[in-house]
C-alpha cells in the first residue's frame, strides 16, 4: 500500500498544478484582469476579450492532454497501469464496435 500512497501524492500534486493553470487562465485572465488585459491588442482582438472567449478554452484542452500523458507516465512509474489482459478476450473483440 505504501506504493499506492506515493502514487496518490504525485497524482494530487499534478492535479493541483494543473488546476492552478486552469484557474489563472479562466478566472484570472478571463474575469478578474480582463479589463486590464483589454488594453493590449492581440491581432484584431482586445487581449482580455480574446482570453475570455477563445484563449481559455484552448488552454483547457491542452491541460487535459497534459494530464493524460503525465498520468500514463505516473501509472507506469508506480506499476499501477491497467494491462490489456485485465479485460476478458471477448470484451476486447467487442470493444472495437
Amino acid at each position, binding site marked *: *500500500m505504501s506504493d*499506492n500512497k506515493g*502514487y*496518490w501524492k504525485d*497524482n*494530487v500534486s499534478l*492535479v493541483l498544478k*494543473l*488546476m492552478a493553470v*486552469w484557474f489563472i487562465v*479562466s*478566472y484570472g485572465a*478571463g*474575469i*478578474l484582469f*480582463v*479589463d486590464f488585459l*483589454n488594453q493590449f491588442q*492581440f*491581432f*484584431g*482582438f*482586445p487581449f482580455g*476579450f*480574446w482570453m*475570455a*472567449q*477563445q484563449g*481559455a*478554452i*484552448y488552454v*483547457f*484542452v491542452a*491541460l*487535459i*492532454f497534459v*494530464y*493524460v500523458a503525465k*498520468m*500514463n507516465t505516473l*501509472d507506469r512509474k508506480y*506499476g*499501477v*497501469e*491497467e*494491462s490489456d489482459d*485485465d*479485460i476478458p478476450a471477448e*470484451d476486447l473483440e*467487442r*470493444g*472495437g*464496435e
Partner: protein
Amino acid sequence: MDAQTLTYLIVGLTFALYIGIAIWAKAGTTDDFYVAGHHVPPLANGMATAADWMSAASFISMAGLISFMGRDGAQYLMGWTGGYVLLALLLAPYLRKFGQFTVPDFVGDRYYSDAARTVAVICALFISFTYVAGQMRGVGIVFSRFLEVDITTGVLIGMSIVFFYAVLGGMKGITYTQVAQYCVLIFAFMVPAIFISILMTGNPVPQLGFGSQLADGSGMYLLDKLDGLSVELGFGPYTDGSKSTFDMFCIVAALMVGTAGLPHVIVRFFTVPKVRDARLSAGYALVLIAILYTTAPAVASFARLNLIDTVSNAEYQDTPAWFKNWEAIDLIAWRDKNGDGKIQYVAGAAFEGAPQFTEGRGVSGERLLSNADGGSDNELYIDQDIMVLANPEIAELPDWVVALVVAGGLAAALSTAAGLLLVISTSVAHDLFKKMLLPKITDKQELMFARMAVAIAVLIAGYFGVYPFAFVAQVVAFAFGLAASSFFPVIIMGIFYKRMNKEGAIAGMISGLVFTATYIVYFKTFDTNPDNWWFGVSPEGAGTIGMTINFVVAYFVSRFTSEPPQEVQDMVERIRVPRG
C-alpha cells in the same frame, strides 16, 4: 427544389439514420442498457459525450445569447468548457474505476446509505427533468419555424423519435446515435460559420475571422466596427462587460462545477473499458466541444453585426422574408413608435415583457401588440434563441445551408434529451427499484422497468416542452445550479477526503440543494429586482454559493460524527489507483 422540401429531406435523412442505428444497436441486457456494456472506445465516447453535452442551449441559444451580451457571453464559453477540466482531473477516472452504473450508485455505496442514495436519485431526477424540458422546447421552436407545424406538434414529433431509440437501444443505442448526431451537428454549425466568415472577413476560419479586418475594403477590424455601432445605438461596446466581476465569477464557477456534476455527462465515463480511456475520452470530448465553443463567439459577433446592418433604420416593408417569418411565430416583434415606417433598433426594451400580439396589422403591415411601451425609443424585440437559426438567412446563404442548420439543431436537442432520459430511467429502474424497493427482480424485469421509465419520462418532458417556463438557456442554467450544489461536492469529497461520512454527505447535499433551489426560484419568480440579490449574485451563479455551503456543512457535520466503516475506506483506496 424549394427550401421547405429541402429541409424536410435533410431532416428526414438524419432521422432515418438515427433510427437505423437504434435498430442495429438494440440493447439485450441491463449492462447494455445502462452503460453500453462498458465497451465504448474512447474516441466514440468522446463524440457521444460531446453530442450528449451540446444541447439545444449550446447549438440554438448560446451564440444568440453571446450576440446580445457581448463579452459577458464568455460566462457560457468558459463555464461550459472549463467543467471538463474538473471532470477529467477530479471525477472521470475514479468513477470509472468504481465501475457501477449511475451517480446515485456511487453516492449510495460510498456513503453506505440508502438515504444518501435516495437524495441522489431525487437530485438526478430533478436536474434531468429541468434540463430535458429545455431540449424539448428547442425541438418545438425548430419544428414550428422551419417545418411549419405548431410547437406542440413539433414537440410530439421530437418525442416520438427519442422515444423510439432510447426505449429500444438504451445507452448502447444512444451512444452510437450520439456519435452520428455529433457529426451532423458540428457540420451544421461549422458550414454557415465558415460561409459567413468568408463573406464578412475573407478568412475561412471563423475563430480568426472575428479578429480580422472586414472584407468590405475599409481595412477596419470587425470588432472595432461592432464596438462602434453598438455604442452609437446606445448599447455598451461589444468587447466590454456589464456584469459585476464577482457575479461573473460566481456564474462561471456554477456552470463549470455544474457541468462536472451533471449525471448524464458523468455516466458517459462509465461506458469506456478502462480508467485510462476515461481520462483520454474526456480530452477527446473537450476538443470536439471546443470546435463549436470557439466558433460560437465568432458566429455571435458576425450575427450581431449583420443584424444591425440589416434592420437598423430599414423600412419595415423592405425587410427580408426571414424577418416576417420569425414575426409570424411571435419571436420577432416591431412597434412603429414614431410612425416613420422604419425600424429604430437601439438599447432598451421596446415594450414590457414578452410580445402579446393582437389581431390586426399596422400601417406598414406589421403585427400589432397589446404590450405597454418600454421606457426607450427602441422599437424592436428579438428573441435571443433565434439568432443561430436565423443567421444563415440573415447572411443570405443558400437554402441547403438553412436546412442543414435545422437538422443540426434537432440533432443537438435530441442527443441531449436522449442522454437525460436515460439517466431518468436508470435512476428509477436501477437506483430506486433494483437497489431499494424490489431488490429481487431479474435482469429482464429490470430492463422492462427501465424501458417503461423512459417512456413515461418522454411524456413528462414533452409536457414541459409544450408549456415551458423560461428561455431554453435559462432553464438549463437552473439544472446547473442544482448539479453544482448537490453532486459535485459529495463526489469530490467521496474520492479525495476519506474521512467524509454519510451524515456529512447527506447534510451537505440537502443544504446545498435547498439553498440553491430557493435562491433561484425566489429571485426568478417572487422578487425579480436584481438590486436585492445577495452580494450581487444572480440566480445563475447561485450554484457556487450552494456548493460552498454543501462543502462547509458536510465538512463540519462529518467532523462531529463517526468515521466511515473500514470497507468503505478500503473502497476509496481502491478507486484511487487504476489497477486492481
